[in-house]
């Protein structure tokens, strides 16, 4: 016991010794954490490693690259944006840890674009308690749109139910009479998506789920094959989209695949599938941002320029487009919040809404709607390249109709940075 006491004392004294480290660092002009006259510190959690990292690991560096571009052009209201990227490996337990580190130790102004339904769900309460703005979550769960319960949380992606309804409407029109089945992630992502699909199609013929911790989808795909499915709708992250399509081919099972936006970046899928990439031909998915291969699009031209200069020449794919579009929206919100930046101020600015940008459909932000993009347009893969077809649609996550919308995209500002 004596030794226990000695060690206890030594350890606790050592801990006391570090008490003055780690604190401080932020003496914001208006006492706002993470904001000084020259800097805004924001943080994010991303799967840079692990089963969901394929593709997604490129998002945060792209966001950072756009911020670097803005910083090089004078920043926002004279402040440079520092973006702290933390890896959570798509593991909710790690997310808890890294977000605490960002908020309590690094004193970030806001969490931006934290990725993942299962991961981000776990930190909503923590962020609310600490009154940290939680902007543009990189996931389409409906949980982000609860202004009464989580006043500081805003979504970005079209929610999975909206997406499910739009994809299902296409399936209903194009593959009438075919047997439609579903494979989804075993969490709110899969559940919300299935809810949207079943609102339009009624009960699907067979449904299966997977967990990212078990990379064997053979049994699920086998069951879908046994059920003689002709159309398989996937609510999967990219690694599992590739795994599902590859496994199906292995089983001699060739249904029409219809894939959620978040699991459909063709560059990522082709890389994961390797030699089996031709299996992607004809896969239907959806998107709401310009496609990376559309070199005529002025946004893609802007992003290509930023990507070459500030992102170490990473291959421009839809993940990079996504990351930069998030960054653009965040800069818009900062401009709108004005020079006197506070946490309440940025939330008000986003709620004020009225943002226009690269999106094919409008964003919805208002005081009583914290969801992001309101709809999607369908894409298909031809000769390894994704392309849009048909019209853009919008809908709600209830029983509202799926209706076409006029194009909402505007040209980017000449210098590529939103005006104040």
């Amino acid at each position, binding site marked *: 016991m004596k030794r226990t006491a000695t060690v206890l004392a030594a350890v606790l004294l050592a*801990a006391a010794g570090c008490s003055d480290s780690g604190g401080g660092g932020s003496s914001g002009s208006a006492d706002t954490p993470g904001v000084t006259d020259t800097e805004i510190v924001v943080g994010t959690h991303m799967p840079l490693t692990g089963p969901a990292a394929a593709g997604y690991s490129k998002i945060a560096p792209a966001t950072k690259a756009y911020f670097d571009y803005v910083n090089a052009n004078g920043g926002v209201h004279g402040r440079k944006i520092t973006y702290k990227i933390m890896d959570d490996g798509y593991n909710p337990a790690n997310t808890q840890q890294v977000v605490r580190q960002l908020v309590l130790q690094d004193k970030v102004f806001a969490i931006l674009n934290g990725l993942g339904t299962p991961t981000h769900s776990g930190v909503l309460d923590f962020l609310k308690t600490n009154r940290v703005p939680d902007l543009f979550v990189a996931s389409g769960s409906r949980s982000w749109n609860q202004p009464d319960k989580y006043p500081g949380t805003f979504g970005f992606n079209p929610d999975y139910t909206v997406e499910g309804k739009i994809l299902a409407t296409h399936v209903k029109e194009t593959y009438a009479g075919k047997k439609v089945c579903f494979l989804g992630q075993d969490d709110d992502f899969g559940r919300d998506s299935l809810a949207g699909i079943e609102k339009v199609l009624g009960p699907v013929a067979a449904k299966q789920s997977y967990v990212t911790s078990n990379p064997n989808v053979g049994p699920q795909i086998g069951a879908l094959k046994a059920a003689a499915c002709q159309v398989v709708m996937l609510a999967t992250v990219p690694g599992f989209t590739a795994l599902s399509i590859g496994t199906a081919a292995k089983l001699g099972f060739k249904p029409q695949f219809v894939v959620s936006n978040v699991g459909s970046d063709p560059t990522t899928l082709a890389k994961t599938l390797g030699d089996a990439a031709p299996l992607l031909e004809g896969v239907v998915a959806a998107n709401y941002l310009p496609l990376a291969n559309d070199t005529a699009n002025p946004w893609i031209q802007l992003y290509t320029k930023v990507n070459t200069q500030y992102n170490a020449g990473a291959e421009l794919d839809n993940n990079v487009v996504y990351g930069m579009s998030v960054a653009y929206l965040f800069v818009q919100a900062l401009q709108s919040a004005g020079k006197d930046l506070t946490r309440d101020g940025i939330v008000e600015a986003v709620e004020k809404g009225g943002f226009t940008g690269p999106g094919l459909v409008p964003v919805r932000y208002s005081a009583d709607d914290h969801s992001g993009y309101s709809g999607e347009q369908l894409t298909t893969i031809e000769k390894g390249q994704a392309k849009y077809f048909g019209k853009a649609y919008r809908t709600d996550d209830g029983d509202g109709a799926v209706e076409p919308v006029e194009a909402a995209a505007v040209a980017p500002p000449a210098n590529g940075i939103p005006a104040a």
Partner: protein
Amino acid sequence: MTALQDRTRTRAAHKAQARLNPYLVIAAGAVVVVALTYMLPPFRTYQLATVGAYLCVTAGLTVLTGLNGQLSLGHGALMATGAYTLALWQNKFNLLLPGILVAIVVTTAVGAVIGLAAARLRGPYLAGLTLAVAVVVPSITSTFDETFNSDQGLSVILNPPPDSMTVEQWQAWVCWGGALLTVLALALLTRGRFGRDMRAVRDDETAARLAGVSVARTQVLAFVVSAACAGLAGALFAVIAQSVSPGAFPLTLSLFLLMAIVIGGLGRLSGALIGAVLLVALPAVAHEIGEAAGSQRLEGNLALTFFGVVLVVVMLAAPGGLASLRIPFKKKGH
């Protein structure tokens, strides 16, 4: 078993010296912890709370492995049991203290089942079985996803702490309350007959049996005690994180726990404390190094590698662990 036997001998010598009253040590520890929660910035207080939660499980495990000679790689899964029990209880009843007790009871029951099987196994067989227990957690949470909600896990409803303190302070108090009580209970328990029986069984089962010690009973009891500690630790982790998910209890956690008790000297509660501190401090240091080097890859892996190297080196060079090297340790300790 000589590696372990050596430790008994040092322990015999250790016994001869004057001992501090455990109650006094625990009381002093409590005072220091409370003082620290007012001195440290919030993130450090949060880390302090995590150390407390780890201490519960490392203390129990070091008794099991060090004093009783049973190896368990399944304590991560036992922590998950405690954590999920607390989450389910809180989301239904929202009564924290009874919830923690229920979590301990449920984990103890699960531990008794594993312990019954473990008491009949030795060496690699025991390690293999408990390893299989450790990897079964995600399988259970996704098979019974309506209860456990798969990889996403459950959030834990908690009442906000009293207005007079911050969330982190409250967490540290709760965790260290649990940790200090655990250490006290284990210190008292291992001093008495039970401690003697455990060591006797560890050193020579036949001799212990001849001396009238029930080998199986002692082993199961040791496993149950350490399982209860793991259950408490799991419940505390659920409180700290306000959520539980299978990803919080991976196989590496169980390996880390093993590292923690080996590095501090098997069978010593002081070693369990050193181990618990390292479990929190080393990944944090590795993160700093990774950030300084600008390498994302270094971060988690540096701690992993370091833990592994320490485990191998300590096992090969100083089977008593760092705490057994008393003189160098004192020299280093300022």
